[in-house]
């Protein structure tokens, strides 16, 4: 990402900043957070309360998965009774109800099933360049959704081979996994 290029997040934030400074000026003159709709003039009240959503998620039953990522491995789970392999990993087999589910290391190669490029991004992803998301099938018969290291979707083809790399996601700086096309 070049320094001078504005991300979608920069643009979203600039727009919101402009809007809220307009709200502040209206508040100063009227004593109320009341603004006219830009298109219709209809009266709008701008919320004076704000909340941030940031969840804290329990991963204790599957923490091995995340610990293994840090060691460069991709783990799934397998039911000892029926043999079903799970990805994303889960420690309960709904088929067998009361069986034991063990950890297994998964192959880091796959066949591309489908893909897209996200051009209009959600706010919490708007600081990235357009990214390609794909779903690929592992030899173990489970599929893995991840970003594909490629900028141009027309260079990808359903059925092509990919390898999975454990990477650090930046700028957040945490381990995740990514598909890489095999030349």
């Amino acid at each position, binding site marked *: 990402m070049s320094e001078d290029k504005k991300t979608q997040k920069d643009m979203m934030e600039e727009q919101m900043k402009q809007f809220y400074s307009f709200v502040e000026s209206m508040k100063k003159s009227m004593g109320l957070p009341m603004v006219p709709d830009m298109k*219709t003039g209809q009266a709008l009240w701008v919320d004076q309360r704000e909340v941030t959503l940031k969840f804290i998620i329990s991963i204790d039953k599957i923490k091995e998965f995340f610990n293994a990522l840090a060691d460069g491995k991709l783990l799934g789970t397998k039911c000892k009774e029926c043999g079903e392999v799970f990805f*994303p990993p889960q420690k309960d087999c709904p088929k067998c109800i009361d069986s034991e589910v063990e950890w297994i290391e998964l192959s880091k190669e796959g066949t591309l099933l*489908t*893909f897209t*490029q996200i*051009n209009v*991004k959600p*706010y919490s992803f708007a600081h990235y360049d357009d990214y390609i998301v794909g779903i690929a099938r592992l030899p173990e018969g489970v599929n893995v*959704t991840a970003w594909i290291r490629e900028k141009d979707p027309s260079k990808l083809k359903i059925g092509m081979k990919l390898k999975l790399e454990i990477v650090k996601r930046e700028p957040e700086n945490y381990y995740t996994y990514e598909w890489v096309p095999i030349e």
Partner: protein
Amino acid sequence: MGENVAIVGVGHTKFGVRNDVNMPELAWEAIKQALLDAGLEQKDIEYVVVSNAGGWSSEPLPAVVIAEYSGLAPKGTVRVEAACASGSAAVKLAHDIVASGHVDIAMAVGIEKMNESPTPTVVEFIGRAGNYFWEFHNFGLTFPGYYALYATAYMSKYGATEEDLCKVAVKSHYYGARNPKAQFQKEITVEKCMASRYIAWPLKLFDCSPITDGATAVIVANEKVAKQLTDTPVWIAGIGHATGTSNLSKRTTFTSLEAGTLAAELAYKKAGIDMDDPTKVIDVAEVHDCFTIAEILAYEDLRFAKRGEGVKLVREEQTYIGGKIPVNLSGGLKAKGHPIGATGEGMIAELTNQLKNRVEKDRQAPIKNGYALAHNIGGTGHYAYITILSLSKPRG
């Protein structure tokens, strides 16, 4: 099976950016229409099911806010969520409460006020409608992105093109232009659609349904009440429902929605419709075209076309009035708009009006057999509800 249940009143607000009203005011517009249509008063409604996805709107307990404002309290109410299929889920529950004999009359109200939040927040919330932790949190899929995964797979397998997808949008806008309640009332061309920017490759702006505010209402009653209220009750002949995996990675195919296919089979069975060619019986359908590709998948999941041939219906314009089966004469989600929680009742209200021959003339389907079908998908095939309506009484 329970008692026969009929639709006795419907309401449908103008869809679009509705900054002229707040949530309960918007809901009231639809509730008022439905009450007047049925010839009922609030005291007659014994239970209210409110469908609303929410998150982007300010009221976390919309059912209660709406019940108070509309004079429906102190009757019982509940809010249901089945993502974009919430509305059909609400109608199903209202139906079940009546069919069970628990009450005589119930109402389903759909409401969504998406414009209470800025667009980036709305995109964020819809993108999370799948599996948050494994698919959104790390990979930032959006709602168009999820359907784009299906588009890429379908186009690759069956040779459909971006132009083909645009032809679906052209039809939606053609009928939207004839529906005064639609968000978009202007026709478009394939060229205009093709020139629009990518939202989630290969889907472009004109492949996508908009962010919409809207409210809808459907009143259902048992046979005894329905016959007192109207000479032309529209019966609920069958409802099919199914659930798909939350992780898209767990889907077994990307060229059809498994939940939609399964729900269709169930609905046809319940309504006694021949699955080999339902288009022989169904006069008109509303299908879940949140994206153009979704309409093509719906044709196939509903058995209007064989696998891989949904795109042929588009190329041959077989889903306009006069074709094999007219679909989305309201403009669909694409042009009429897609206020998530209100979409399902909106489809059912539209089809009730179609069956009663009371929509605008240039978008009225010819009613021959008296059957209509609403295909309502929540998320990306996460939820599927299919409701079949009929002018003839189902049983007894």
